[in-house]
């Protein structure tokens, strides 16, 4: 198993180098001169030229890319063009908030999604099934900003007016109470996907012979559903949860904006808008690494769930 993990980690290296090349190339051939951007439109051309020389922008493309890669191995991603701080630090400042939010949101999504999916599948074609599917539909179609604003209105504003204190703070980050509302807003949006996939996967598994065997042993229905069926039905759910977690780690600009969370989503949008190419490169590289790691985690979860898959991981 350990050998498999190491193998997978090593195979991530070429993928990530590939990503850096594509990103670097795109940023390099995008119109706009970083030196001009840095010094302002009115800067004398000689000044700009000196800056270009200092930043290495006059070197051939491959030399620039080589320098970038070389820096990468020392965790040196260059400096942010807007703040002048190291890109590494900029990302390190924002990443924890995003990871916490994504983790909390995916937990909310899995909790809601799996439970509603099970309820829907065990009572197929009943009011419960229809209700769960309706709530799921509501979850995806409700805009994040609307639900966010409504929650702020209820739990921060009205609560404060009625009870004299704020139940959940409307902005900022740091404590668990800050995390509750944004996690619910993001979680409900993603729960719908997990509800649907849990339902269909459970319906498939509940028809299997081994479920009949389990019932014939005299197990009660809860054990049959939550132990015997759910574990078998979990595979597609884990796949979906992994994908959704990846999306969440990309940051949610809208939710971060509403709750004033210093996350990656806003950082990326800001840096693209200001053509802050070093920062964009850094962020996308971070995403590539995170996505690869999440994929690996999903594959390892498969093996933990299903012993038949462990055999393949040699």
């Amino acid at each position, binding site marked *: 198993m350990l050998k498999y993990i190491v193998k997978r980690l090593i195979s991530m290296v070429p993928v990530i180098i590939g990503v850096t090349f594509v990103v670097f190339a795109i940023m390099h051939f995008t119109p706009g001169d970083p030196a001009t951007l840095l010094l302002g439109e009115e800067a004398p051309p000689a000044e700009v030229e000196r800056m270009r020389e200092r930043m290495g922008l006059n070197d051939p493309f491959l030399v620039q890319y080589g320098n970038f890669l070389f820096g990468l191995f020392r965790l040196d991603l260059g400096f942010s063009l807007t703040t002048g701080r190291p890109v590494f630090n900029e990302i390190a400042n924002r990443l924890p908030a995003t990871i916490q939010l994504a983790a909390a949101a995916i937990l909310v999504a899995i909790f809601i999604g799996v439970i509603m999916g099970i309820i829907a599948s065990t009572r197929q074609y009943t009011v419960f099934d229809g209700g769960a599917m309706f709530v799921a539909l509501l979850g995806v179609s409700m805009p994040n900003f609307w639900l966010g604003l409504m929650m702020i209105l209820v739990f921060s504003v009205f609560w404060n007016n009625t009870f004299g204190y704020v139940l959940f703070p409307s902005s900022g980050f740091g404590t668990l109470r800050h995390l509750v509302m944004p996690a619910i807003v993001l979680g409900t949006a993603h729960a719908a996907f997990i509800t649907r996939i849990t339902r269909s996967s459970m319906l498939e598994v509940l028809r299997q012979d081994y479920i009949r065997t389990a019932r*014939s042993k*005299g197990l009660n229905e809860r054990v049959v559903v939550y132990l015997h069926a759910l574990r078998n039905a979990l595979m597609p759910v884990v796949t979906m949860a992994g994908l959704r977690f990846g999306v969440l780690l990309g940051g949610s600009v809208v939710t971060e904006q509403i709750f004033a969370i210093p996350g990656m989503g806003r950082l990326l949008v800001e840096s693209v808008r200001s053509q802050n190419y070093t920062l964009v490169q850094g962020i996308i590289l971070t995403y590539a690494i995170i996505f690869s790691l999440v994929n690996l985690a999903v594959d390892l979860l498969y093996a933990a769930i299903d012993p038949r898959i462990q055999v393949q991981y040699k």
Partner: protein
Amino acid sequence: MSEKLLEIKDLHVHYETDEGTARAVNGINLELKPGECLGLVGETGAGKTTTALGILRLVPDPPGRITGGEILFRGENLLNKKEREMRRIRGNKISMIFQDPMTSLNPVFSVGRQIAENVSLHQNVSIKKGMSRAREMLELVEIPGSRVHDYPHEFSGGMRQRVLIAMALACNPALLIADEPTTALDVTIQAQVMEIIKGLMKQINTSLIMITHDLGVVAEVSERVAVMYAGQLVEIGPLRDIFTDHKHPYTIGLFGSIPDIDDRESTRLTPTKGLMPDAMELPEGCPFHPRCPEAMEKCSRETPQSVEIKPGHFVSCFLFS
């Protein structure tokens, strides 16, 4: 009365779907003594499995429903039991082995865990204690106890069926229902599995209902044979009677479709013409009359009652009433 382990009285099971009602089991009467082995034979779709699931009250509902009758197990009607009481009987006093061993074991739990689950549930012991019982049971079905932590995919089909047998017998049930336990296995493995079932039945004095369409299997284990057709029992009697002195035209047809090794000259078999009726559109009267070579005018109007023609040998046919 007390010497009967199981008594089924006028059992009816229907599947109610949008297209109509499929009458899978229509008024079955059956008795079983402790330690007795009964063979239940019939074509696919005759209602054998539905009868078995009915005994355990595991007919999938919806669409299936037990619409009438009584199932007395040690004198108590199982159809009046609460679901909780039923759960204490399933896997404990009445166990079932299913047809396809490849899909009947849960792939994500070790075989030992699956056997132990049964033991710990009914004997109120920890899974850990159950595991040692599981080891014992595996040895009993000739699987090394050291494989208790292995998963179903690591076993062959025959071994999986033996695991299922071990699981079904782990709590020493009074009744084992084996639903075509050898159908999915190849012939040599079939013999092996039958040997094990036979041996264990003697060892722990369990009654057996062997459901099959394989008359060879029936001949090997049963003391009595019941022949089922379109949800009804057409003939029931001691093994020897049914094999050598069968009376019902359907049973005659059934045995007519077995090749006779002493008479190789006639290369053609003499199977019953036609197909079993659709359970949604059962004919009036005796369900066999449209295919019956002996059918009379009466057969399409009335359903024949079961008649005892010899001690313990019952036939449902107007030829004998």
